[in-house]
């Protein structure tokens, strides 16, 4: 599927219009739901390490009670704050702007938000560079397309997402600057709502990868808290392990964590 050529014209229209009466929630589902998270999540601290290294990366995301992302902070291997993002909402709970700080080069960028509920689209424009990120949502409010263009409306990158009836992603295809598919992820889900396998097929070269997930712990809300990913190169029937990633999530909820007694009515 090609990115619609009319999208650029639509974006131009979007950028000159405001939809103050609408909230972004009219267009898309909350961030926690989109991310396949369960329960009233307040924050998630994610710790990642590769190949059993003692070096770790840390990320913290905070949410409001409706599941909207309030902000995100990322630390590098030296435990230095690398970047931070803060979302700003208006009195209607609509996302109006976000700020992104790259702490490495101390550069701050502000992105303004333009909504188009009628086309189920949200555009985010960098006030400094003019770069625009346009997301299109399905009638069920799940993201199905993404497109990033520069100031001259030249395509930087894009993607499209296919979903099944319960809205879970089945395919994710990344598009390059020349509007050609670069690679596609095919997802396999289990009954718990976890992706257990991802098959990655590159379109412009003969290469295939497989990501296999093992969930070590799951909390009372059904969110995984420890996950091991193994990445393989696939060639015919052979697969060769190339790396592994261990992710640990510390999840804080708005309510007290569920205990066994919570189910004991």
């Amino acid at each position: 599927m090609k990115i619609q050529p009319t999208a650029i014209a639509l974006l131009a229209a979007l950028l000159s219009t405001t939809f103050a009466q609408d909230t972004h929630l009219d267009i898309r589902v909350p961030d926690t739901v989109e991310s396949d998270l369960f329960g009233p999540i307040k924050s998630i601290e994610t710790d990642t390490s590769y190949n059993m290294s003692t070096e770790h990366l840390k990320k913290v995301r905070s949410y409001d009670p409706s599941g909207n992302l309030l902000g995100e902070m990322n630390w590098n291997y030296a435990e230095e704050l690398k970047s931070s993002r803060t979302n700003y909402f208006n009195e209607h709970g609509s996302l109006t702007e976000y700020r992104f700080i790259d702490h490495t080069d101390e550069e701050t960028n502000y992105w303004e938000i333009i909504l188009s509920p009628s086309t189920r689209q949200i555009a985010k424009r960098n006030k400094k560079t003019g770069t625009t990120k346009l997301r299109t949502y399905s009638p069920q409010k799940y993201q199905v397309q993404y497109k990033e263009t520069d100031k001259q409306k030249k395509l930087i990158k894009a993607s499209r997402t296919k979903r099944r009836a319960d809205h879970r992603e089945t395919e994710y295809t990344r598009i390059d600057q020349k509007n050609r598919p670069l690679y596609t992820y095919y997802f396999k889900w289990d009954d718990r709502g976890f992706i257990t396998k991802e098959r990655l097929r590159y379109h412009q070269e003969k290469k295939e990868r497989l990501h296999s997930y093992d969930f070590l712990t799951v909390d009372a809300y059904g969110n995984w808290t420890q996950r091991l990913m193994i990445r393989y190169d696939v060639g015919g029937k052979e697969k060769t392990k190339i790396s592994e990633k261990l992710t640990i999530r510390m999840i804080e909820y708005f309510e007290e964590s569920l205990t066994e007694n919570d189910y004991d009515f």
Partner: protein
Amino acid sequence: MIMIFKKRIPLLLFIACCSVFSEEEPEAEEPHDEQQEENALIQSQFDYSFEDISDRLVAIKYEKGFGNGFIATMEGKTYLFTNQHIILGANQLSFTTAAGEKLRPRRIELSTTRDIARLLLADGTKGFKITKHMPMDSPVGLFGCREAGDEVALELYGTVTGVGADRVEISAEFSAKNSGAPILNIQQEVLGIASYVRKSRTHAMKEGTQFENRTRRFCFRLTGNQWKSVNWKKYNDKFGRFYHQNALFTDGVIEVLTEWGDTPRDRISVVEHPEKSLISWVTSHNQIIKIHGGPTQKKRFAAEYSKSLKTLSDTCARRARQTRMFSEKNKLTGFLRDELSRQASTLEWMAKLLTRISHNAQDYR
């Protein structure tokens, strides 16, 4: 004195680098009070002890050594599991459970990628269950026999501190001598096999952090393996003995050079070692140390000393070539291929460094 000091710099560098290659580790340190309390807390979660599972813990004895093993069921069969590095190179192996029962394995299979061997036992032998489930921070215990006396129990407790596709890291402070022992959870299920200990390199970046001088302990996972059945006698005769002898030689050279590095003008006191070629070199080198006298003798000493180091360098280089050749044999398991390749790299490095020191030693007085 200054000259001697200068000569020692590359040697110190050499010894420091040897520790990078060496998987041998320090003896387990006495835990601090806080650590002891934590271990006691972990131990309290286990409702069984060594005695309760002694029928599934195995003491493995060979000519001059001892290792651990254990009995577990896999794919409907019962096996004795141990590390390949424990049994490789051994002439005579005997297997006895900690409860005193002699075991007679029927067949040996080797993991194609990990340092694990499984030996088929008779049907009906009681074994541990094996689990894939190993959450981070969950309590684990290492159970084994402390030394050749089968009845000397070893119990070490800790938690899972790292999980990978083929191995798991634990905090229970086992040493290399405890290789082959099972790592069990509180349900008496095996998470992995104690396999190796690695001390992290000291680095300025790590100073003051939790990783400074950190010793890490790894256990191979039993699940997700591919197994290769081997004719053990042939495999061991052809590859096992070579690997074992090479390990002795490499460790011996490190031992000799460590002592030599401390006192390069003194006799080397290592006179007993299973690797005869090394003892031969030590004997010859100690003869050179005796050379004293005027300028002519000093010149002779420098030349002989340099030549002696070159001889050792050449021996290392020869071994390295042979080891590299062996490491490329198709019949090897991935574990042995990697080990031989590692040994070859160590020997190549030793040879290179000894050549350099030998060259500089020509000016040695």
